[in-house]
């Protein structure tokens, strides 16, 4: 008897916690079709509509910006949104989560693909079930998704090169610390290298190192670079943790102000370093736009508001949306760093 009571208490606790953790996006009446006020604008949706964002490594700060954008769009449209994803960097987890979300029959899915091929299968399943799907930040091009929103990594590299050139007066020895083998980083590195070669012949790229997504490894690599090339004037790091590691190394070598750092993304560590003057600038990706316009795309698809040609775009096999959208990159410096702290 005692065991049974304890069993029931623990179960109640579990469900109680689940209740606590539940978001307040409510769905009181489960209507199958979204209702919209046909008398006025079709852009007024109903709270019964639910759009879901699916990510991987769902707990990191990076996705927060994207979801904020999605929430802003949802508020303007009057619909509900949900954030979910795989806790870890695991294909099986994200595929499972996406398929579980599909079984809930949401009105649209905004997903970032941990792997383009593995995610193509569940995305196709969603599309076959009549659920509109748009990808952001990491694409699954063969899945049949309606559009893809992301910041062009190559262009980001170009911007970094130009800004670093501005800081160093267009001449001197510079380095690059990146994550070889990862597509988005390779593209950033390519943009950087090619712009330096084309537009700034007096700048020389003397070293390319692997930051291993780890502050400590990067700090070591950066220290080594500064030892080998004492006249180094700048470095571009293609990832946030890499930038923080490089900043630490520059501080420890007492070269703040002599070695300029241009980094990536806007996590707190990076922003703090910018305000302290150790990192000169970072590149913020348009994550808010990925969420906001992704949500807008999904709503338009769900409510069939797109008419790129006279007649049905499906039968005419015309794309309903721009297939790829570049959400751009902003250079964040001491002047505007405060705006990027997440609240």
């Amino acid at each position, binding site marked *: 008897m*005692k*065991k*049974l009571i*304890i*069993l029931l208490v*623990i*179960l109640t*606790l*579990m*469900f109680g*916690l*689940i209740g606590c*953790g*539940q*978001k307040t*996006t409510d769905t009181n009446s*489960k209507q199958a079709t979204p209702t919209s006020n046909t008398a006025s604008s079709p852009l007024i949706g109903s709270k019964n509509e639910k759009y879901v964002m699916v990510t991987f490594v*769902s*707990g990191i700060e990076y996705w927060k910006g994207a979801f904020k954008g999605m929430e802003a769009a949802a508020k303007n449209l009057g619909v509900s949104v*949900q*954030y*979910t*994803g795989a*806790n*870890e*960097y*695991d*294909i*099986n*987890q994200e*595929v*499972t*989560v996406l*398929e*579980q*979300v*599909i*079984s*809930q*029959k949401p009105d649209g899915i905004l997903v970032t693909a941990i*792997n383009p*091929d*593995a995610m193509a*299968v569940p995305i196709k399943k969603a599309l076959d079930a009549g659920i509109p799907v748009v990808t952001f930040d990491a694409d699954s091009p063969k899945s049949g998704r309606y559009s893809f929103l992301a910041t062009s990594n190559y262009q980001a590299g170009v911007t970094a090169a130009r800004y670093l050139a501005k800081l160093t007066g267009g001449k001197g020895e510079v380095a690059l610390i990146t*994550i*070889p*083998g*990862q*597509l988005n980083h390779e593209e950033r590195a390519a943009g950087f290298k090619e712009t330096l070669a084309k537009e700034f012949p007096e700048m020389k790229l003397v070293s390319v190192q692997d930051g291993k997504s780890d502050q400590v490894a990067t700090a070591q690599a950066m220290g080594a670079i500064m030892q080998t090339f004492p006249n180094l004037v700048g470095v571009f790091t293609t990832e946030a943790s890499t930038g923080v590691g490089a900043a630490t190394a520059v501080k420890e070598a007492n070269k703040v102000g002599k070695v300029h750092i241009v980094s990536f993304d806007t996590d707190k560590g990076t922003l703090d370093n910018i305000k302290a003057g150790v990192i000169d600038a970072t590149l913020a990706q348009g994550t808010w736009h990925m969420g906001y316009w992704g949500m807008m795309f999904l709503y338009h698809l769900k409510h069939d508001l797109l008419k790129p040609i006279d007649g049905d775009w499906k039968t005419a096999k015309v794309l309903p949306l721009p297939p790829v959208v570049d959400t751009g990159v902003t250079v964040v410096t001491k002047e505007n760093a405060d705006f990027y702290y997440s609240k």
Partner: protein
Amino acid sequence: MNIMEKSETNISSSRKIKFKPFKTLFSIREASLATIILITATAMTFLTPGFMTRSNILTTLIGLSMDGIITVAMTIVLVMGGIDLGVGSVLAFASVLAGVLAIKVGLNIWLAVFITLLASVSAGSLVGYFVTRIGLSPFITTLGMMSIARGLAYVLTKGSPLSLGVISPAFDYIGQGSFLGIPNLILILILLVLIFDFLMRRSAVFRQIYYVGSNEKAARLSGINVDRIKFGVYVLSALLSGLAGILTLARFGVATPTAGVGAELRAIAGAVIGGASLSGGEGTIIGALLGVILVALVNDALILLNVSVYWQSLVTGIVLIAAVTIDMLAHHRRTS
């Protein structure tokens, strides 16, 4: 006198029989787990419409199938009184090796699978050798294997995932197809669970694993070849992990060096929820499967009920502690 005593005992024992099945039910780990799963599933069916759908149930089961195979391996190792921290990494290594052999080297996929299984057996043999002959602790040895196997996976792919494309329809069928309406991965998991549960309960050789785990010295003194048992179990564990890796490749058509990260801890959690003890000598395969199902069910519930992602890891931990606590109290009752 004797007759009087006998009749007294008869009456009191018949009174006890009424409550006995109930008490025994809850002191059997599998039964209480199955009950919790049923209660949770029923609650979920009422709380959200998307739960009791074919697609959701199948997805959840497929999602846990790889972890399930790893948990079968981990349970056997735990029953033996050991531990294998390398299961997730061997999964990744096998997945990558099979992929690289098939795509980069251009071997026939089945030959690649065979070589990969051999490689997994080698990995397990290496662990077994260091534990039995050299005498290193299983924790340290398998911790080392965890890094080595994962490292090899990274070296083989240079960090980037490898896409298989359509290598062989038969291979893809195993990972993605169904038989009689049930996805093959679920069938394979059920088959392995039934086989190993049977072996662990009925096979004389596998029963020895329990003796070794309960009291290694006594097992050795009673004539059991403890070293052989240990060696065999580590080889089996690596073989099952390798199989899980190959099935992962068949399922996704992609070989990633990051597959199976954290699988070892999930497997330990599943096995322990299912009744295994970290000190050895206890645990069943069916219990472990129920443990894995419970955790997967709770995770599914969190997603369908729109619970914040930050709670997911927390809840898994709570389920683990709760399940172990309930069992501790059940044990306490029985012995006191």
